[in-house]
């Protein structure tokens, strides 16, 4: 097991290198360049050219990538912070430290100042949503799959389909129309700022509800399908014909087997909740990670995009690792090697 985790850790670092290089290479094809973006649209072309040269943007891709990597690892000073450029880009942490993602040209602030607060905001949203999605989906999925074709099964399945097929922007708008416009119980936007009179917790309710409805509908169906399949297995018949009461058959024999297949899918929801909830964040003006990635991409803020990619990727790979380990715990036939 220990060796397995070391092996996976090594592959995580390799993947991060590859992905960061790919993102670097892809931004080559975006119009404009860092110098132009830094100086803004009204700067003179001659000023841009000077900065272009000073930043070494004419160097080959590999050289620039290495330079960026050097900054990240704290081996080199961030060139944008060079006072000689006169840009007044200042990072209170200094210009040379490990984990320096550089300077965001979009927000005109160090990436580290921008990105972590956004990630925290999204992690709060995702964490609450995930904490609700998992138990709800397991409960309803098991209840539905336990007796395939029963009234309960059909009811849960229909609700699941409806919940998951209504897009987030639609359910968001419906909920806002009802709870904000009609009843006035909840705030319509969630800027995570209590200045508007609404406490922070009340601003979380609607975004979380939208996410739970959308995502749990899907996970319920996965769990239900797996559970229904397990209930038809011969070993469930063995358990029933041992004389075990239905509750013991389900709890002791079925549930663990039924968890195996949807386990990976459930953990994949974490990735979705971190970087894929742009729509919900937009609807509620939520200062989240997904929205930041979207803005950074539209602007071409390479430092921010790189940082966001690495973080999202690390989360994705870690959840995958957790899911593989958990899979082996659930299923004794799998051995990690």
């Amino acid at each position, binding site marked *: 097991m220990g060796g397995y985790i070391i092996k996976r850790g090594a592959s995580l670092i390799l993947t991060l290198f590859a992905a960061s290089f790919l993102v670097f290479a892809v931004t080559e094809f975006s119009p404009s360049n860092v110098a132009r973006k830094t100086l803004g649209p009204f700067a003179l072309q001659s000023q841009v050219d000077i900065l272009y040269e000073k930043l070494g943007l004419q160097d080959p891709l590999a050289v620039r990538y290495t330079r960026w990597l050097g900054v990240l690892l704290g081996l080199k000073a961030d060139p944008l912070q060079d006072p000689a450029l006169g840009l007044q880009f200042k990072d209170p942490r200094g210009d040379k430290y490990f984990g320096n993602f550089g300077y965001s040209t979009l927000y005109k602030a160090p990436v580290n100042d921008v990105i972590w607060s956004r990630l925290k905001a999204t992690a709060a949203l995702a964490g609450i949503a995930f904490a609700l999605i998992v138990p709800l989906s397991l409960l309803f999925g098991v209840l539905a799959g336990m007796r395939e074709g029963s009234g309960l099964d059909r009811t849960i399945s229909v609700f699941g389909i409806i919940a998951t097929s209504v897009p987030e922007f639609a359910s968001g708008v419906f909920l806002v129309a009802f709870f904000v416009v009609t009843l006035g119980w909840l705030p319509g936007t969630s800027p995570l700022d209590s200045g508007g009179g609404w406490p922070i917790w009340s601003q979380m309710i609607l975004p979380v509800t939208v996410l739970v409805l959308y995502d749990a509908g899907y996970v319920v169906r996965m769990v239900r399908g797996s559970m229904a399949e397990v209930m038809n297995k011969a070993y469930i018949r*063995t358990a029933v*014909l*041992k*004389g075990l009461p239905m509750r013991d058959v389900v709890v002791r024999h079925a549930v663990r087997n039924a968890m195996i297949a949807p386990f990976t899918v459930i953990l994949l929801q974490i990735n979705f909740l971190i970087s894929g909830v742009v729509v919900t964040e937009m609807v509620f003006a939520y200062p989240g990670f997904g929205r930041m990635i979207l803005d950074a991409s539209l602007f071409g803020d390479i430092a921010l995009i790189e940082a966001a990619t690495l973080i999202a990727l690390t989360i994705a790979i870690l959840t995958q690792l957790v899911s593989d380990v958990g899979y082996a715990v659930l299923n004794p036939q799998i051995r990690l090697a």
Partner: protein
Amino acid sequence: MSAPPAPDGLLVLDHVKVEYVSSVGAVTAIPDLSITIRAGESYGLVGESGCGKSTLLMAIMGYLGPTGRIANGRIVFDGADVSAADPASLARIRGRGCSIVYQDPNAALNPTLTIGKQLIEVPMLHEGVDAKTARAKARQILTDVHLPDPDAVLDRYPHQLSGGQKQRVVIAMALLANPKLLLLDEPTTGLDVTVEAAVLDLVNELREKYGTTLLYISHNLGVIAKVCDRVGVMYLGDLVEEAPVHELFANPRHPYTRRLLACVPRLDTDKHTTTFLPIPGQPPSLAGRPRGCSFGPRCAGFDAPRCGVAPIPEEPAGPGHGVRCVRWRELDQFEKTDAEHVAPATPGVEQVMRSADLSKVYDLGNAFMGFGSSRQLIANEDLSFQANKGEILAIVGESGSGKSTFARILAGLQDASAGKLMVLGDDLSRMPAHKRTLEQLAAVQMVFQNPDATLNPSHTAGFSIGRALKKFGIAQSRKDLDARVKELFGMVRLSPHLARQRPGRLSGGQKQRVAIARAFAGDPKLLVADEPVSALDVSVQAAIVNLLLQIQARNGATIVFISHDLALVRHLADRVVVMYLGRVMEMGPVSSIFSPPYHPYTEALLAAVPVPDPTVKQKHLRLEGEPPSPINVPLGCRFAARCPRKLGPVCDETPPPEQAAPDGHMIACHIPVAVLARVTPIFQRVQTPAGAANPS
């Protein structure tokens, strides 16, 4: 059958009718069935797939699923009516009263719970004991079913046990609550023959020890003959005949029973003396149950006014012998055992296939990026044998013996690691199918075990054959193709309109016929048949075997017949190769394999074969343990670790010499042939009990 429920009947089925209800209406699986099983007896139910055996079993356990129901009659177990029981009393009956040993032990055990957890919940539930006592009981019962190291087994997961060990666990689980009735649902189907014999021994032993009543369900008449006192024969949900076991095998009175027995290969006959007598047609679907006698449409003696009007009543045909046939007294007039004799092909002298020191080794590169120890799996080693024109060469052995690996090399699905494999003068040992010429491809064709999986479900049967014809350049135009497909369908005795059907609409036997027609499309010189009938019912198996023999007699193809069924091999093979862990143990003409001198492994195999004749007594000889893994095999004789006649260290250290016996018979063993010859034959006919004559 219709006898009034005896007071000592532990299980009484009284005019039971079982239906499956669906949106289109009710389908009757069992129309009207009565059986009484007395305490302490061992009752066998035989029948082919779809005859309602399993439905009956589940009805007894009160577990017919949401669509099944007992529409009429009563199932009385130990004085309590199962058909009317509420969930609580049903739960008491299950496990405590009667428990089941299932067909497939791999599926019957929960893969995510240890054996211990699955066992201890039985006494905890039924006897209310604590976990510690329950574990002690579980340990004891594992010892009783002869599992070595029961403490370790308790902590293992099912996938860490072999198939035979798992079936012992399932039997232990069934016995844990001391049931009065043990239901066995094909408990040895899918197990190797030596494992099967050991499991049957265990069933008999436990029956003596605990006095449990048995209801044994099987399609295998040999197994039934070994463990049962009384036998019932089922066809389409009807009990068509019921008799004590000796009586049933000696004097079958129902045409179906008689045909069934005439389809079973025996060890004292072969293709030259006997032809199987298959049952024409196929069983109708449950919805299309015929009027009157359910077997009527397939019976040679069907007489519409007498057989096709009303349900057939049971008639006594002897003491304890009941039969549901109005014409059972006239049976000999319309049932002839030698109706159609198939003259088998005569093997020629021309060599078609010869393997010389053929080996196949798999490198199990296990470790990460090539680190760690590499292991080797030796699937075939130094195989040297040959097959002549028109000959049937059987390769027998248990799972893991490497017989299918050889077939795959022959068919070009795999490369050999070393040695030669000459087919019609070409070395095909390292020539995969895509490198073979059209002639080479057409010359070697294969029929596989599972006909369901070998035909493409989205193409019609005729299309699959037509494509082979086109590929081999035998026919090109639409008209030629159709004519040739029709001809091939005629050869395999299929009605030509089935050529337009997709495999989903065909029965297992029909699919295998299509597979055979496809294999013969290119007029092969060598047919590799890998367990071609082992997935089929015995009557279908008989028909397919007859068909293969007929086709061979006509076109003189050589057949390499791979099988684990020794009785079947006895019937159709000319020469036999016995393999164990990738090596040839013994080979020779079929008659020399089945009589002394035997290789000790062959001897054990033969002693394990279930013989469908209770008057034949087999020498008792069982192998210890399970076949070892083919990884890191022993240096000397492969069989040394389990050999009951092991001489000593020489067997472990030195590969055995290939000793020649008369008639081209070879035995690879350290024991001299002359010593091996001094054993009693495995099969001996014993005095039949009074009242039973010899098989007709």
